[in-house]
């Protein structure tokens, strides 16, 4: 019998971790001489108080849904893909190549190919660490960390030496042609008579991200492959006994994971910047880890956690604008969430399990 009801594991523990993280962050804000309540009000006002704020919140959330799903899928196979950052960078390269060098008639066709290219490039970047893990036993975490740095150097080279337009000093590609620009939420909602901020960067990629959440749910819980991935994640010997090939599961789960991380590029590169710049990912690959941990590796949890982190990011930008609190506060909150939901999980879990056990004894 489980020590705790399932709902406590899925809802209560992330919630307590979140409250702890919020409390610690409030202490930090107090320590630098600002008012935490006012700070929270500013954050809510700035990120949820207008369609402009929502536009940014949802734009960030779209990024985090992709990277969060990427980490979550790998988690199900008990792989820790820390390389989402590098995979998303390579995805950006894929999108840039597709958008710059093919004359697309319409954005819908371009989007299909951009998704394919970003996913393929991301998956390719995850493939080598996956193969090394599956075939040679090299630790996936270390190799994916190394691949983040290799990706960053590679992209630096491509932008500075190859893709930079002649005469430009800026290490970035040209602007993508008008035809491949994705519609923003403003343009999407206008036919329905809904006024949404024109300046906000949220775009059609949000729809793709939500679709990706649903598809990942179907994959993990409604297909044979998903079952095999989860079985392998629960117990390698068990999976082996059931005739599941560890090599196959590691490769496939990491390829899907890398593909999802790569697909983030349709949002930040194709949808927002409309060109490829250095450091386009801005750490979203790492936030994906926090999102997946917070969301308990469930697509719906990832969806909610991504919106939460989108709110934190937009709110943090507003804070930096109006107060003496720099944006790095968000990095601290993110670190606290990762620490509490990931590594210090038992610290929250143990007392809670004791509590539930004693409650059960009391009833019996």
């Amino acid at each position: 019998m489980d020590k705790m009801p399932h709902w406590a594991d899925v809802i209560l523990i992330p919630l307590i971790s979140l409250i702890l993280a919020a409390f610690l962050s409030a202490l930090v804000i107090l320590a630098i001489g600002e008012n935490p309540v006012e700070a929270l009000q500013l954050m809510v006002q700035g990120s949820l108080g207008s369609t402009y704020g929502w536009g940014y919140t949802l734009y960030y959330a779209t990024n985090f849904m992709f990277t969060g799903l990427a980490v979550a899928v790998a988690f199900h196979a008990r792989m820790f893909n820390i390389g989402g950052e590098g995979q998303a960078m390579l995805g950006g390269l894929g999108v840039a190549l597709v958008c710059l060098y093919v004359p697309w008639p319409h954005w819908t066709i371009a989007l299909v190919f951009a998704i394919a290219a970003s996913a393929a490039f991301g998956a390719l970047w995850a493939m080598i660490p996956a193969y090394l893990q599956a075939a040679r036993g090299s630790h996936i975490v270390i190799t994916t960390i190394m691949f983040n740095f290799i990706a960053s150097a590679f992209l630096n080279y491509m932008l500075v030496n190859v893709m930079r337009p002649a005469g430009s000093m800026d290490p970035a590609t040209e602007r993508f042609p008008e035809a491949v620009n994705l519609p923003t939420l403003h343009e999407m909602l206008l036919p329905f008579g809904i006024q949404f901020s024109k300046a906000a960067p949220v775009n059609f990629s949000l729809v793709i991200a939500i679709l990706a959440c649903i598809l990942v749910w179907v994959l993990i819980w409604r297909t044979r492959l998903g079952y095999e991935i989860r079985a392998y994640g629960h117990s390698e010997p068990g999976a082996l006994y059931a005739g599941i090939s560890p090599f196959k599961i590691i490769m496939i789960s990491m390829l899907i994971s890398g593909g999802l991380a790569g697909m983030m590029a349709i949002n930040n590169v194709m949808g927002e910047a409309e060109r490829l710049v250095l450091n386009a990912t801005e750490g979203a690959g790492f936030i994906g880890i926090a999102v997946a941990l917070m969301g308990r590796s469930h697509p719906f949890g990832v969806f909610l956690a991504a919106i939460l982190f989108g709110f934190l990011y937009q709110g943090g930008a507003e804070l930096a604008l109006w107060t003496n609190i720099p944006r790095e506060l968000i990095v601290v909150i993110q670190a606290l969430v990762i620490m509490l939901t990931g590594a210090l999980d038992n610290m929250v879990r143990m007392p809670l399990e004791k509590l539930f056990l004693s409650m059960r004894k009391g009833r019996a």
Partner: protein
Amino acid sequence: MDFITLIQVLDSTIRLTTPLLLACLAGLYSERAGIFDIGLEGKMLASAFLSAAIAYVSGSVWLGLLAGIAASVLLSALHGLASITFRGNQLISGLAVTMLAQGFTVLVAQDWFQQGGRTPSLTGAGRFTGITLPFADALEPVPVIGPIYAELISGHSILVYLAFAMVPLTWWILFRTRFGLRLRAVGENPAAVDTAGISVTGLRYAAVLICGVLCGIAGAYLSTALQAGFVKDMTAGRGYIALAALIFAKWRPWHALWSCLLFGLLQAVALRFQNIDLGGIVIPVQVMDALPYILTVVILAGFVGKAIPPRAGGEPYVKER
């Protein structure tokens, strides 16, 4: 390349190797005891900030060094708490430690100094300065040996000599003392150590704290000796290069020295020459930046000798089953 340039590049190699070597040995203690540590970067960063801040405020670099070590040890203790006491995931904890440092250093720097997340420049007693070894001036005019002694070996800060002295010391501690034997045993087979009546938890905490001290020195070196003050994200991936060097060295102290020197040389060359022209083939600077990581992946893949980590690495120890 003439002789003077060579000496200058090697001199710069030694300076750049020092933080890598300290962090690499730090990781060596921790990982040999079975605690993976991908948070070396964060501990160095925290120490780099606090040592520069305290050195600036107090005007004493030694107080700065102590403060830096304290900051790093604090993060180590957090990593220990998560991975030893609460048996959490060591990799996630290491990542969180790094992020915590990345956020906190800028947050506190902005609050204390209002200079956009940096500390004011350090001067005078706020920095570690070079030590001139005996006879360096006298030997200088001697051809070949003179410049090598006066430029390359003499004239570094005390932390450089400390870092290089740590290599034989670490070897001696790990392979010639009782503590070292137990430390290695706890990374290979903690159950056996436990059966012998020695505390697994105690040993692992000791290893993690030593790791913190060494990372603290590495960070302080960055901001008070190599450069004069802290700037945002000044470790610039050195913690991960140190981790790469540790794997490259296959978790052995003397090999750690060679791999750190190699990676330090790559950094020095990249710093000095940008793009290298090798008879028509131009090696872009980005290749030099990526080379430590590529080499490590090759080693990890087992194509050139196999890197086998300590067997109990990454596994929390559970006493009763």
